[in-house]
């Protein structure tokens, strides 16, 4: 046993964290109390333990007083455990001889109205940490070789940017995209704010770069189905659905689609147009090849037709393609699965789905696309004629506690952009934007807002309460209060656009489960730290890019993608990662070879091995993730989790009780 009580020299360091801790907890009292605990050689308090002076204080004590255990009472170990381990290491002490007492997140910040109670609790927490410190053992980290490749999930602008950055850095990238083409949501938009350039013009070259990059393997029609391993060495499984068209042979001539007899609603146009069962999502698709939708193809569903096969001169149709599951090994993973537009059907007061001329912002966006359902013209769905009077309703499904409380960040700007497009298309049109607050926070955004005001777009501050359709004229009558005038009003419009926000993509939950990365309350993927690690998922080696994390516009998505790529390349460029000594030690003398642990291990990391005349459990340290379930179940106490041994935990229990 390591608890050599006789020569224990523990240093306790109580942090003020500026005022964060010291305003509530009497840090001096805690330090005085600590200094009297058995084995404690020195106890100090200081303003910021994590700063240079604070760390220096600890290293000096280690060197001069010969400390062999360190307890830091400060913020959550999730914030600075690594910092202080490094301090220990530099001072020549094994970094695992450190224990953190969390007296900020779990004490001063949550007991602000009870300073006495908080101080008592802080003392208790330090006492428990000191108790555990007595039983800490020096541990060695293992270094593991990294697989120098990365997986990027999602082929929208964020995924594209991340993949290109990583590949340009020289790493092999697997880019997995669910649909038959790259492009994602940005590929659906026509012009982008505030520059009003055409989205395709700036996106397509990037898509082509991906397809031509020697370091990127593009897997379309594919999705992640399984993942295991950890930072530096993930093993993932990707299911690739057949395209039924040979990408290399297809010339994208389109004759197949002309002849295909099956017409289905086109999801790219949100059902405003139709497509064939063999189709391309856009004329700019990458890969530039048709794809057969197995759900609707007559041959695949009912065994008849095969017209496309007959008319294809390039002989590209291949009904023999089968679904395959690819197994890949990667060192890091970037999740860029994007978002879905909010479905406004549940807001019954707006009549979306009931009134033809109530549409969503993304639907309008498709109309403004020259390749879209109306050839680029904004038209009333009910009449096919240009609208004379258009209303935009902001914050539909966003900033609404009934649905999503968060601000979707893009709707103000896209509504302003679309209002300008409508004004350009028809000088005489009357455009109003009903808003609660206009949020024009980005570079050039306020200027853009000003431009639309100058163009005569009316900004009316008030949330529209309901829409009804005049049964005779089919005009839409909006009820609202102009809150700046303080008057309740009714006005009719011939087109109403609901500025819907972004919601987590439908498969976000599935992805979060596969990768074991949690989601925030809003359903988006959660970052490791909201301020300091916005690119990282909570699991090491997994990074977030784009709207999968939170609603973003294009510049933010691209910036975050580059950030994620930079983060993801750190382990790849290091080539080695340190693995924490989390796995259990098996005391072979004690192990009875009962095998209970083997059945419990979720990773198959344990097996029985013959040792002399008996069998004992053996841990595969690469597979083991250190949960400790086996340790908890071991009837003979043979398994010990190095950083959470029974002695450590029991000593904490006893220390906390007294």
């Amino acid at each position, binding site marked *: 046993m390591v608890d050599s009580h006789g020569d224990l020299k523990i240093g306790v360091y109580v942090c003020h964290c500026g005022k964060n801790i010291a305003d509530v907890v009497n840090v001096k009292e805690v330090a005085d109390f600590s200094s009297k605990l058995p084995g404690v050689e020195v106890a100090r308090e200081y303003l910021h333990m994590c700063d240079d002076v604070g760390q220096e204080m600890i290293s000096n004590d280690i060197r001069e007083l010969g400390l062999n255990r360190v307890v830091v009472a400060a913020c959550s170990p999730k914030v600075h455990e690594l910092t202080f381990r490094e301090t220990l290491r530099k001072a020549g002490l094994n970094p695992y001889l450190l224990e953190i007492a969390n007296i900020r997140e779990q004490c001063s910040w949550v007991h602000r109205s009870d300073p006495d109670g908080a101080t008592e609790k802080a003392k208790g927490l330090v006492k428990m940490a000191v108790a555990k410190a007595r039983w800490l053992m020096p541990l060695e980290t293992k270094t593991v070789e990294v697989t120098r490749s990365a997986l990027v999930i999602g082929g929208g602008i964020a995924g594209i940017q991340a993949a290109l950055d990583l590949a340009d850095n020289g790493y092999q990238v697997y880019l997995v995209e669910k649909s038959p083409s790259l492009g994602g949501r940005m590929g659906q938009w026509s012009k982008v704010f505030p520059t009003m350039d055409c989205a395709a013009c700036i996106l397509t070259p990037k898509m082509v770069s991906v397809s031509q990059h020697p370091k990127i393997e593009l897997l379309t029609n594919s999705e992640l189905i399984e993942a295991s391993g950890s930072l530096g060495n993930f093993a993932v499984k990707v299911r690739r659905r057949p395209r039924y068209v040979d990408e290399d042979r297809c010339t994208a001539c389109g004759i197949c689609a002309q002849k295909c007899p099956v017409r289905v609603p086109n999801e790219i146009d949100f059902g405003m147009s139709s497509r064939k069962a063999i189709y391309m999502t856009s004329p700019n698709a990458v890969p530039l090849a048709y794809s057969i939708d197995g759900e609707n193809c007559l041959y695949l569903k009912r065994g008849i037709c095969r017209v496309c096969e007959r008319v294809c001169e390039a002989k590209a149709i291949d009904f023999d393609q089968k679904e395959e599951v690819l197994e890949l090994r990667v060192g890091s993973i970037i999740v860029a699965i994007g978002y879905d537009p909010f479905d406004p059907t549940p807001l019954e007061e707006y009549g979306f789905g009931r009134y033809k001329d109530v549409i969503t912002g993304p639907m309008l966006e498709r109309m403004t696309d020259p390749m879209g359902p109306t050839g680029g013209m904004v038209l009333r769905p009910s009449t096919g004629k240009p609208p004379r009077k258009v209303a935009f309703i902001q914050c539909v499904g966003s900033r609404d506690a009934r649905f999503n409380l968060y601000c979707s960040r893009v709707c103000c700007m896209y509504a302003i952009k679309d209002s300008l497009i409508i004004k350009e298309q028809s000088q005489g049109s009357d455009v109003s934007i009903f808003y609660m607050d206009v949020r024009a926070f980005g570079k050039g955004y306020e200027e853009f807002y000003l431009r639309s005001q100058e163009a005569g777009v009316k900004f009316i501050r008030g*949330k529209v309460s309901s829409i009804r359709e005049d049964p005779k004229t089919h005009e839409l009558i909006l009820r609202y*209060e102009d*809150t700046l005038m303080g008057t309740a009003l009714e006005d009719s419009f011939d087109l109403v656009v609901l500025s819907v926000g972004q919601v987590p993509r439908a498969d976000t939950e599935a992805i979060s489960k596969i990768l074991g990365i949690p989601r925030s309350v809003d359903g988006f993927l959660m970052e490791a730290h909201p301020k300091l690690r916005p690119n990282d998922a909570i699991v090491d080696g997994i990074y977030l890019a784009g709207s999968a994390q939170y609603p973003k516009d294009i510049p933010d998505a691209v910036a975050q993608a580059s950030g994620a790529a930079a983060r993801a390349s750190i382990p790849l460029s290091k080539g080695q990662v340190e693995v924490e000594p989390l796995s259990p030690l098996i005391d072979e003398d004690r192990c009875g070879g009962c095998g209970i642990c083997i059945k419990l291990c979720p990773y198959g990391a344990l097996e029985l091995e013959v040792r002399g005349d008996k069998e004992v459990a053996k841990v595969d340290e690469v597979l083991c993730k250190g949960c400790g379930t086996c340790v908890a179940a071991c009837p003979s106490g043979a398994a010990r989790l190095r950083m959470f041994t029974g002695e450590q935990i029991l000593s904490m229990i006893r220390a906390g009780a007294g």
Partner: protein
Amino acid sequence: MLPMGRIDVMMADDLERAFREKVAKKFGMRKGSMSLAIEEAIREWMKSEEEAKGPEEAKAKPPLEHMEEVAPPSVDFAREIVRASGENINKCIQCGNCVASCPSGRITAYNSRRIIRKASMGYKEEVLKSIDLWLCTTCYTCVERCPRKIDVVNAILTMRNMAVENGWMLEPHKVVSTNLIKTGHAVPIDQATRERRKDLGLGELPPTVHQYDGALFDVQQILKETGFCGLIERAQPQKAASA
């Protein structure tokens, strides 16, 4: 542009003379002085006519707000509403959805958003003494649509309770309450209905407190116990002006 309107008038000589003297004194003996003065006189007359118009027309105009008459805000008022109703009115983002949803606000100047605003800013008297507080039909449409999920009706009912506690109550409401205390029914039976009940083969009195004196006594006991009787007695009935 030069004004071109022209009116020729005949008037009493003495009035004409006095008027000319006054004009000369004020504007001097210049050309156009008479026109200036006459125009002013006509404007004044028009304005006074406007003001003397019937209440119907006057109602169409928004009431003038005299900020100097408003009692200073009380910081405790909003806090008290939040405490008593459990409804945090400070969450309001003033979007006006409630006003646009409001059946009352559709036909009157009633503005629930402004009540919430004034309340959260602490204008206690202005809110509690206002007839507006009594224009909500408690239809809950605003509650269903509020993007901040504020139960506006709950907040308004709380403010009404506070108004009554301060003795501000509308006269007809005092009548209804007195009925309730006397009979256990807010709307007690009348002679015509007694006849109809008999006609329909129902008992002359329903099997409610109307038939059971002991039950009525119990109800009165509760109304006393909860302070309702005292509350109604103390209330100074306000005339229910039309909104």
